């Protein structure tokens, strides 16, 4: 049996050490495994930096654990393109994250996997579900389209914004506002929050039959967290969601093939010294990708 298979077997029997090693193996393996759990429950959480995603997840985790759930959080943080290192600090803000046996938090640097992290997140979620984690949260910081979109692959998507209305423009650009099932304006204890919520509502009202709620919460004070949890529980998956998921899966698998292409570094080098054009690089990649490159 492969190391991944062995670890999964130990992890499903309740060995937390093996579960943790399994997640690492999935992140680092050259070919992510195809796990499948029928009972998987996932929530994507995304939003601009500093909107309070981690703090809010901590509060939700506490709520779920109190209701008898086991909560796993995969927190994605960007890797520095300069040093290749990362400072993964999301878990500090998850006040509920050290609730003991029933909460599992893994920080993931987005840049350490061959072919990008995105095709590996879903095998990780399925593995966690197979191991009995009933609430699985994927948190991404919304600093660019791809980061927003990893979260959008979850069964349901929570978009968190701060009271500063300008923040959510990025989410709108990435098309995430349309995809969010639940929208929370955090920091309701600060001035400006209701105004921000109102302007998001106005923007949603522009499209027909949009019944999605925009909830005000304060992750700091805990206000509105229960209401948010029940909105997440009862939200109906977005009608365009399946097409979106398939589309994103295709794009991320494609990216993965591209990024793990044996010639990519060589082509980038040639592009840098102008010895080839972008078109020629793409042509060359196409040819070799056909041959299984």
């Amino acid at each position, binding site marked *: 049996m492969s190391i991944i298979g062995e670890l999964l077997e130990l992890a499903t029997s309740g060995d937390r*050490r093996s579960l*943790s090693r399994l997640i690492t193996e999935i992140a680092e393996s050259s070919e992510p495994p195809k796990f499948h759990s029928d009972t998987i429950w996932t929530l994507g959480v995304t939003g601009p930096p500093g909107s309070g995603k981690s703090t809010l997840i901590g509060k939700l985790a506490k709520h779920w654990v109190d209701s008898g759930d086991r909560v796993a959080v995969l927190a994605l943080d960007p890797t520095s393109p300069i040093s290749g*290192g990362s400072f993964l600090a999301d878990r500090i803000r998850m006040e509920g994250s050290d609730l003991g046996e029933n909460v599992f938090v*893994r920080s993931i640097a987005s840049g350490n996997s061959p072919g990008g992290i995105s095709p590996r997140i879903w095998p990780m979620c399925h593995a966690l579900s197979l191991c009995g984690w009933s609430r699985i949260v994927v948190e991404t910081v919304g600093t660019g389209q791809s980061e927003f979109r990893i979260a959008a692959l979850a069964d349901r998507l929570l978009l968190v914004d701060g009271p500063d209305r300008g923040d959510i423009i990025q989410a709108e650009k990435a098309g995430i506002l349309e995809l969010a099932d639940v929208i929370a304006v955090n920091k309701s204890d600060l001035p400006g929050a209701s105004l921000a919520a109102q302007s998001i509502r106005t923007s949603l009202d522009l499209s027909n039959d949009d019944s999605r709620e925009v909830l005000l919460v304060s992750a700091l004070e805990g206000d509105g967290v229960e209401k948010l949890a029940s909105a997440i529980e009862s939200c109906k998956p977005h009608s365009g969601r399946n097409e979106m998921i398939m589309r994103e899966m295709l794009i991320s698998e494609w990216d993965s093939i591209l990024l793990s292409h044996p010639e990519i570094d060589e082509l980038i080098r040639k592009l840098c010294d102008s010895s080839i054009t972008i078109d020629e690089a793409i042509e060359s990649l196409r040819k070799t990708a056909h041959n299984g490159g």
Partner: protein
Amino acid sequence: MRVVIAKPGLDGHDRGAKVIARALRDGGHDVIYTGLRKTPSEIVMIVNDEDAEVLGISTLSGAHDSLIPKICDGLREGGLGDVIVFAGGIIPDRDLELLYKSGVRAVFGPGTPTSEVLAFLDEAVERKLKNDPIGVGDDLGWNWN
């Protein structure tokens, strides 16, 4: 490497921990910072869940002699004997031996250049590759200082 930087016990000062975290990140490591006031058992669970290869413990409160051995014991009991442990902060020389006996492999005091911590990690990786004792559960005898 995946490194957890931890602040155990009642100690609210983490400037040093953050400086180290930043230096390790710039050195190409993935650093997970626990935040303040974690118990030894919380730290052991974080090291497990994050599948860290290295744990750096920062303490300035004077409780290093009781907290750090507890964490090291917890790691060994939790099947995490291969984790490499180092410590930093305000730790008097007379306590170093106790920490080494607990499985700590390096202690960095005030004024240590961050490059030295990175050099320690490089050496630790080399030892690991050669199967020389380096983890908290391995044979004692080697330490950086």
